[in-house]
């Protein structure tokens, strides 16, 4: 954030984010015991984990309030890592 933005920064409701994270964690543990197809279970768990990670990054690490160019710098290694993992998996299949 710019210096003037930092000084006038209004903090989000961290307790609300905390409650959301707790609810999502409980849902994750409950999802594990649901009698449904494995692929559905794994998709739900991955979705919940990504949602929790995004909440932490956006509100606790304040990425939601940063410039787009900084977000791009940070997201780049994440995307690169996913691509490299996928390529490694594909190369092992061949």
């Amino acid at each position, binding site marked *: 954030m710019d210096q003037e*933005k930092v000084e006038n920064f209004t903090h989000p409701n961290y307790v609300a984010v905390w409650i959301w994270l707790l609810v999502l964690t409980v849902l994750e543990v409950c999802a594990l015991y649901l009698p449904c197809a494995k692929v559905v279970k794994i998709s739900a768990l991955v979705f919940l984990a990504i949602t929790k990670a995004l909440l*932490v990054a956006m509100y*606790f690490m304040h990425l939601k309030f940063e410039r787009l160019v*900084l977000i791009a710098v940070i997201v780049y290694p994440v995307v690169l890592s996913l691509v490299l*993992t996928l390529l490694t998996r594909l190369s092992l299949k061949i």
Partner: protein
Amino acid sequence: MSHAATASDVKGLSHPLGVNNAKLCMWLFLCSEVMFFAGLIGSYIVLRLGSLTWPTPGEILNIPLTGVNTFILICSSVTMVKAFAWAHMGNQTKIKRHLFLTFLFGVIFLSIQAIEYYKLYHHHGLHPSGNLYGTCFYILTGFHGCHVLGGVIAVFVLWIRSLLGHFTKGRHAPVELVGLYWHFVDLVWIILFTIVYLI
């Protein structure tokens, strides 16, 4: 006498990403940490998908206990960000209280992890060199635990500094920087908890 323009005089060039240099350095460090954990998690996924047998969730690992540990780490993230918010507002008493709580939650997290390791090693016979599952489990959670330990030490130093009155409304950058690191460690655990324990 004319004033020669420097790069920092040009609007937007001094902090092109909108953050100061210390914070930018922390973000770049965290980017390198993303690559570090991505290497470990990526290897785990590749090894697991290529493995014929793998224990089902809850077969060896204690999921309710780790669920509680995840809850504790999330709580520590909230106390850390609240410490930063109070530092931003210049409330000395609440900075000290929230930094201490963060430190305490971090220590509890590590203690529960140590108990989990002890039980897995002695009661379930899960050794780091025993099989592929054991190796992956200890490497992933162990490296994360080392990061938590580093964070706990950093938060402890911050707490001592807050007792000495080092952080004021206009001077609290270390709280924000350590906070970024601490939240990153929490974020990594959120991913690890799902991948290692639940899937």
